[in-house]
């Protein structure tokens, strides 16, 4: 009886160990491996042989297989990704080395280079992830991102309401805040992203309206005046609305399980 109890415990422990295999491998062989382990335990028990040393060997042998299969799985699935990040890491590590030979690069610049390299790596990851989405989702993401980047660039360079120094332009931060918070809360799922982009478009239109009430004299865009401010805001709002509509289209096409980061599958290399 006690022997049965010990065997059952070992079987449970072995089943837990098997969970450490990569998922595809586990789904393919997990059940068979458990059966084989049970067969071997039963055979030892029938022969009246001790289990402890045998089980220890099984666990060590299987652990070695787990390490090998995980390494193989990571390399097979992520060769391209590993290369990209190895290049990014090598370039980042090269910066302090180069600084030993030249005074041209200051620490502030070095940090900026590092950030740029990490952004490049992040852009690669983003592209790999977008490749797993539908074309509607990709277009939606592209239009939304382009709108946000253009808004930041135009607002930072010349300002939308008056000059770039006008504090009213800071209100456009609300558009970015809505986009960021909405994306995080929706976990990039298309339906949530559609709502987020609709909200961003609404905020985009509300900013000049509010500014018009608070700073009526300053709401002007070059020679186009007040009308120019509203037109340019409507153009940005349209971009966000187009993005939102595309996200909504993507939401109707995608199965719920794959809609969002939860459905992320590594890109095949």
């Amino acid at each position, binding site marked *: 009886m006690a022997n049965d109890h010990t065997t059952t415990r070992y079987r449970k422990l072995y089943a837990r160990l098997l969970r450490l295999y990569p998922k595809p*491998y586990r789904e*393919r*062989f997990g059940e*068979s*491996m458990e*059966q*084989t*382990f049970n*067969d*071997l335990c039963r055979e030892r028990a029938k022969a009246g042989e001790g289990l402890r040393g045998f089980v220890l*060997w*099984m666990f060590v*042998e*299987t*652990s*070695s*297989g*787990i390490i*090998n*299969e995980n*390494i*193989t799985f990571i*390399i*097979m699935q992520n*060769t*391209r990704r590993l*290369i990209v990040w190895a290049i990014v890491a090598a370039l980042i590590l090269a910066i302090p080395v180069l600084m030993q030979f030249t005074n041209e690069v200051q620490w502030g610049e070095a940090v900026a280079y590092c950030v740029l390299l990490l952004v490049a790596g992040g852009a690669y990851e983003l592209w790999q992830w977008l490749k797993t989405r539908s074309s509607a989702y990709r277009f939606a993401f592209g239009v939304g991102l382009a709108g946000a980047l253009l808004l930041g660039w135009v607002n930072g360079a010349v300002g939308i309401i008056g000059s770039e120094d006008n504090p009213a332009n800071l209100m456009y931060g609300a558009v970015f805040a809505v986009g960021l918070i909405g994306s995080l809360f929706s976990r990039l799922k298309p339906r949530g992203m559609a709502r987020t982009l609709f909200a961003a478009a609404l905020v985009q239109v509300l900013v000049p309206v509010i500014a018009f009430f608070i700073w009526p004299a300053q709401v002007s865009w070059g020679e186009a005046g007040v009308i120019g401010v509203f037109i340019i805001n409507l153009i940005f709002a349209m971009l966000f609305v187009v993005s939102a509509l595309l996200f909504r289209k993507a939401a109707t096409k995608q199965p719920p399980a794959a809609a969002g980061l939860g459905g992320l599958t590594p890109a095949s*290399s």
Partner: protein
Amino acid sequence: MAIQSGGVFSIFKYIRLQYIRGGYILGRMANNNFSAPLTPAVLHILLALSTQERHGYGIMKQVESDSQGKVKMGPGTLYGSLGRMIDAGFIRDSDKKVDPEMDDERRVYYAITALGRKALAAELQRYDEVVALAKRKTLLPTTHAYGK
């Protein structure tokens, strides 16, 4: 195996296929090139499956019996090899069925394929040539395999 065109990624793919544990078998098998030796685990599994299809535990016991207890394979090695052999087309897995001798759970059975038989034949031929060479050089010990 020649590196096909495709730049740095092809080179990495080549390295990956050649040097990952057991993976070099895949690289070789993909081209039906049987000139390089099989790993001992793969050879013993092919030998065990050469007479009849077997489930995992059955393969283990047959390998142990064939090698007179000298080769003991754990589940980690066995199923890792089986996975690579299936991918290489050496063996195939069948639907689950009950082992009449064990008569309990349904199990997945593995069977050797034509490609697997070809690989086994090529490997045995290679062994034969090595033994012939050893005989010519009078290097062959008077003992049988596995020290008996």
